[in-house]
């Protein structure tokens, strides 16, 4: 069933004189991390199914600078930001969807002051719009009766107050959505943010991702859903460490929707 994906780049569009509706900012994890690439493809399938005219930057894309900025390297961040902004403005990009809350936050909030003004949405928000406008449909799929819990990525939830879009999508699945004790504004971090993803944890008695995974597993869900490739890594590692990977899957909301829509 694996159909070849059609993924136009901005450069190709420009050459053909086409103007895409939206730029899909894939992000470094979505481009290089094996698990996250599967999410990227799920997003592409949804966009294709909904006949969204999208394009990616492909090899021209570069890190938004988020991990550098959170780690205090404002220089590197701004170098990245300004180079990216030049590129994006060169393509006259107006609207961007990201597959990662960190790219989403950075592009949406931190680029405008440096000259990059775009409408930026997270993929869960775009998918919600596509469902609401009937451009794609899901039938509840094979999730009926399954227990799903949603882990709020910090930069989607607290960082940008997007709590409902992912939940609205999960609501379409006719599965049982259960909330962890700490959710929404009170959600607990997965442990990856602030550039922690790229370093060893400081001295402690527990890793943050274990604390969070334990909380999720208390609910005995079949699926832990999230909307961030870094949360994905952290929670998957946690579930594996707890030897629960047979019983509990960690999936991105986009993957759930793609599955439910048979994509």
């Amino acid at each position, binding site marked *: 069933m694996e159909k*070849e*994906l059609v*993924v136009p780049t901005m450069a190709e569009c420009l050459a053909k004189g086409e103007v895409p509706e939206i730029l899909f900012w*894939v992000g*470094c994890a*979505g*481009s*290089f991390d094996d698990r996250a*690439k599967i999410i*990227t*493809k799920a997003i592409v399938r949804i966009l294709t199914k909904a006949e969204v005219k999208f394009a990616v930057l*492909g*090899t021209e*894309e*570069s*890190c938004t*600078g988020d*991990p*550098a*900025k*959170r*780690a*205090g*390297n*404002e*220089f*590197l961040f*701004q*170098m990245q930001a300004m180079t990216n902004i030049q590129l994006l403005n060169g393509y006259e990009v107006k609207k961007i969807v990201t597959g990662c809350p960190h790219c989403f*936050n950075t592009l949406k*909030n931190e680029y405008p*002051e*440096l000259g990059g003004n775009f409408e930026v949405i997270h993929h869960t928000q775009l998918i919600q719009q596509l469902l609401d406008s009937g451009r794609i449909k899901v039938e509840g799929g094979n999730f009926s009766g399954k227990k799903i819990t949603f882990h709020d990525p*910090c*930069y989607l939830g*607290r*960082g*940008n*107050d997007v709590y409902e879009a992912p939940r609205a999508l999960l609501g379409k699945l006719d599965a049982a959505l259960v909330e962890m004790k700490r959710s929404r504004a*009170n959600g*607990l*971090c997965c*442990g*990856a*943010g*602030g*550039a*922690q*993803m*790229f*370093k*060893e*944890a*400081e*001295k*402690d*008695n527990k890793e*943050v991702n274990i*604390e*969070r995974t334990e909380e999720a597993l208390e609910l005995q869900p079949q699926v832990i859903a999230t909307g961030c490739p870094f949360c994905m890594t952290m929670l998957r590692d946690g579930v594996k460490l707890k030897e629960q990977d047979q019983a509990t899957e960690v999936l991105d909301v986009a993957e759930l929707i793609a599955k439910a829509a048979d994509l």
Partner: protein
Amino acid sequence: MNWIDNLIFCVLLAGGIYWFARNAQKIRRNILLGRALDISDNLNERWKLMAKVAIGQSKMVVRPVAGILHIFVYLGFIIINIEVLEIIIDGIFGTHRIFAFMGYFYYLLIASFEFLALLVILGCAIFLIRRYVLKLKRFMNKELEGWPRNDAAIILTTEIVLMSAFLIMNAADGVMMSYGKLSGGILLPEFAEAATKIFGEQSQAGKGLYFPVSAYLTGFLPSNPIALHYIERVCWWFHILGIIAFLNYIPYSKHFHILLAFPTVFYSNLKPKGKFSNLESVTNEVKLMLDPSAVPPVSDAPPAKFGAKDVPDLSWKQLMDAYSCTECGRCTSNCPANQTGKLLSPRKIMMDTRDRMEELGKGIDKNGVNYSDSKALVGDYITAEELWACTTCNACTESCPINIDPLSIIIDLRRYLVMEQSDAPAALNAMFTNIENNGAPWQFSPADRLNWKNE
């Protein structure tokens, strides 16, 4: 009261206010050690936010028990100030219960003061129990050892003692007034009659002014009018002198939040929490690097540090946050780093910032405005290990009842470590290098960015 009393009262009051103003002024000066920062946008929204979060305590009740008890104490504090005003007028002019002319409304006021005083006592007692008997986890952290823990105990017990003095004073006064004009004041059969009409005749004090709470204390008081008179006077003096003393305690204490909570919320961050500040000094340099023909902005100011090493490198808002922090620990108890046993505690970040400001301030008091020492906020107060434990998750800013932002301080200090000291953990330096060279935090070639399409 004779005129000597009035004079003593006036001198003590003026002295108390003067000393308080002097210390408050020092705090203001310390806050202004910080960098200038213009926060004058969205004034309407700011007033609304202040009404909701500071005056309306909307974030306090996220934790209902502490929230509701705090509302008791907070309302008590605000409403009882009306009573303090009466005491001050009485003290200056030698009157007794000058506001009693308000009639029915006065009874209502007195009744509400008394109920609030009771609730304050109750609230503070439960707060003490939570801290010192139940030992709630967030009050047991290391950063509270020593003075901060005593500070909390002093505040709570003082409030209980002051409110008790107020109630005993009323009780004594109530009995005396039921005897007639013994306390040298104004009491008044017609008031007594009105009180009886409004409130019924449940208590002895109903025959005097109506004191709904303190009436229950009258049984413990002697019936001798002279003794009663002295009890009333002693409590009166104790209550008001206690308040003046407490006022002067506040600038030395975390209790300063009762004043600064309001401006702190007013000037709080209105942008999405995920947005970090943009360092303009860096923007200028980066522009020059990307476009050598750009003209550097002319400025007489010394080149700004990148990031913050010490409190003067932080903004006045960040410094005001530190003076407003009441060390409740909600931030720390929700901090993922702290929960998993790491050294970082956002509350400690705020406490350290204040302690360092106080230290610098004392130095300035002694040695003049140009004082500097060899210490700094980074290193001497806050260690790199603490700073590198933060996941920038914003749980702390979300939990703070008055929108204090410890995260912004953490980031400014990280910026200093990275950009001025080149002192980041090795793994992060590797990540920086990858971004610089390959445009990704990992070692992948940019040419492979689209490979996923065909995998």
